């Protein structure tokens, strides 16, 4: 009788094991490097140094004014 009980419990435990949650492996959002870090590729705009935030910001400001402010071109 006890063997049958133990066997039944073992089968029940094995059956319940199938209902267990799988381990959660999500790691959240991956870290994104800042844009001024550059791409490490040669196809970049000249006038700034990768890794130097100030030079990157300055270069973008100059590019914005030169490329998008048409009043600056005619003055």
């Amino acid at each position, binding site marked *: 009788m006890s063997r049958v009980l133990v066997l039944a419990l073992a089968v029940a435990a094995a059956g319940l094991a199938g209902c267990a949650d799988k381990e959660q492996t*999500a790691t*959240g*959002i*991956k*870290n*994104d*490097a*800042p*844009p*001024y*870090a*550059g*791409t*490490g*590729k040669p*196809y*970049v*705009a*000249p*006038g*700034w140094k990768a890794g130097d935030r100030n030079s*990157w*910001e300055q*270069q*973008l*400001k100059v*590019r*914005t*004014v030169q*490329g*998008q*402010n*048409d*009043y600056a071109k005619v003055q």
Partner: protein
Amino acid sequence: MARMKFICDSERCIECNGCVTACKNEHEVPWGVNRRRVVTLNDGVPGERSISVACMHCSDAPCMAVCPVSCFYRTEEGVVLHDKDTCIGCGYCSYACPFGAPQFPSAGTFGVRGKMDKCTFCAGGPETHGSQAEFEKYGRNRLAEGKLPACAEMCSTKALLAGDGDVVADIFRNRVLKRGKGAEVWGWGTAYGSKQAGQPAGAKS
């Protein structure tokens, strides 16, 4: 610190769709997905106005607030990006966005089917800058190349301005002063807040 923003000058937009084409080409966006669109108000009526619309990278982005898996993040430059490996394609962001920016490709090269796709301000995503993985999921990372979004740089009339908010606001302000009209900036208040837009609280953008 640079805070990246878009401005669309409806006085100048001629509905050429150059911005849409530039975006499609730069990022190889698949058929059926439009990260940027040109919308014409009162089409055919004298005085019609066109505006180029994409993700405005809102200061207080509704998409970030409603995402159940928190796949969005904001860079230090104020660009709202998302992680396609975390996105479950539920579409909540699409309902929340006032600009209709989130797109959902049914198939293609942009990640797994159903992942949300949107304008990245040409800033790529959470992959190695300039990598093939970043290009396939998010498109080209022009900001990391020291460039500005392709849509604005290709705009033939310079109606679409993109860059540091202070700089583009100065450019637009100068235009308005020179021409003496057209000071309304569509979507600015909605995206960046009425205080920043110089409008009273609660006013329409």
